């Protein structure tokens, strides 16, 4: 089945059960993402973007269908297996930054490295990335002392510190002003172009989507268009 794609999805369905009611969130999604692609996923609220994001990231199991991420069949993975997938193959960037508020920027990055088994000491080879993200002199500050743009850049550093196969960004510019949004998007494009980082980015913003090589449009739990 491996056709060189780092993400291969076939007839993916996800149904949430709310009380006694089944709510379908994904209704048969097919998607291939080649290694090194920067793909933007757009669509209205409730279209299934976040559910797709969570399943690819191993945060939720699929109800049916086939999902292979970095050569691993997610449908066959246990909870512990999906935890390992997140640890080594997936990096998350969230709209609300989601930094640990009581740790400094440096420790927020270190904790991701530690969880992945990389030890507590910073990786010297990661310093060029910190310079690229322009946060090398902000590392000893806690999130409350950082601007939104700085927090998101720390979140990106944390997401890629373990060199994941895929970077999943959920509305990474949703809480940023125009200037910081542009900076973050350029960083994502730089990471993609310079380091070959595969990126899937959910966004509502067409300008942000334009940074990707391709855009996937979703509606009612299905992919309706690819551009």
């Amino acid at each position, binding site marked *: 089945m491996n056709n060189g794609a780092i993400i291969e999805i076939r007839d993916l369905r996800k149904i949430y059960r709310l009380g006694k009611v089944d709510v379908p969130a994904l209704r048969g999604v097919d998607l291939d993402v080649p290694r090194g692609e920067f793909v933007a996923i757009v669509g209205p609220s409730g279209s299934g973007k976040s559910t797709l994001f*969570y399943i690819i990231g191993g*945060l939720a199991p699929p109800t049916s269908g086939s999902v292979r991420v970095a050569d691993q069949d997610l449908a066959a993975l246990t909870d512990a297996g999906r*935890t390992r997938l*997140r*640890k080594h193959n997936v990096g*998350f960037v969230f709209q609300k930054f*989601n930094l*640990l508020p009581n740790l400094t920027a440096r*420790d927020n990055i270190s*904790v991701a490295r530690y969880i992945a088994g990389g030890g507590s000491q910073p990786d010297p080879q990661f310093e060029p990335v910190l310079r690229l993200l322009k946060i090398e002199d902000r590392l000893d500050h806690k999130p409350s002392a950082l601007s939104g743009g700085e927090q998101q850049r720390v979140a990106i550093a944390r997401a890629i510190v373990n060199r994941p196969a895929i970077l999943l960004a959920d509305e990474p510019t949703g809480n940023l002003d125009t200037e910081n949004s542009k900076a973050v998007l350029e960083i994502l494009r730089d990471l993609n172009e310079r380091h070959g980082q595969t990126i899937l980015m959910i966004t509502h913003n067409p300008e942000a989507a334009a940074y990707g090589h391709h855009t996937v449009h979703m509606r009612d739990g299905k992919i309706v268009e690819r551009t």
Partner: protein
Amino acid sequence: MITRLVVENLKYKPMRTLLSILLVGVPVTLILSLVGISEGLSEDAKNRYRGLGADIVIHAKTASTVTSFSGTSLSEKLIPLIEQQPHVKLAMGVIVHSIDFPALSMMGVDLATFNAMSGGFTYLEGGPLQGPNDILVDRLYANQKQVHAGSTLSLLNQDWHVAGIIEGGKLARIVVNKTTLQDLDAATGKVSVIYVKLDNPALADAAAHQLEELLPNVVVNTMEYYTSMFAVNNIGTVKVFTYVVIGIGVVIGFAVVCLSMYMAVLQRTREIGILKALGASKAFILRIILAEAALLGVGGTILGIVMSFGACWTIRTFVPASFPMIIVQSWWPKVLLIALLAATSGAVYPGMSAASHDAIEALSYE
């Protein structure tokens, strides 16, 4: 990294952390105070009996406790009989009357015999017993009751004239004439205990055996054996009471840490979701919560030890004679283990709850 995460978590909500440490520390203090009082009473009694200079102790089989006899079941007529035995230099009958909880007693002695056996009291104020209503009290009891030589002291529903203040460490804190106490207890000719001094203390075992054969209806022990029985573990009621207080301490520590960590887990739901998104396993999350609880247990133990010094100072200042509390350092590792057990077991449920959080729900928690 886990240490940093745990320490930063504790620093993040300092009031919750301090309250948790305080509430773990209180039962630690209670346990240490109880043990300190029990051991203090035991040590104090042991030292006072050793200071008496007797080699053998004789009491009735019905005498109730190790640290203070009660009842007047021995006839004084036994004393001349005992004194006729080989190697017996002196025998002294003492009547004991319990005064105050837990082990404060008044002892009636014949002062001349007492002086011959022990070398006599050291008087800090006043002098020996003269009249029938004279009383001697040691320095600690005098401080506790704020009396001096010449003062009047009310005990056993009657007024006593404080003839002297004595240095402690010999037999009793409160001493009166034997005949006076016998009259008060309607026990003329009776005593609670007989102390025997030998001409050669090395013969105590043989002499005790000989006295046992002579007096089969009483209990005869060497002073060495008798004082060795003063270990707290040999006093059944104290042992049970200590276990009960330890049990209560564990329950309080468990409940406090359980509540505290449950609150912490609720407050940190989003952070737990973040850690899970980063790939943290259930065991990792549980480890953080347990480490945090263990740190609360260690903090509570340290605070409890510090507070036990405060409790010791307070008790020794206000009721030094009734509760001669001491600091028992050998119990510090034990209370640390007790606090760790209570704290970590209290954190298991919140920890499991945190570990099983759904990552997506946790990330969307506001």
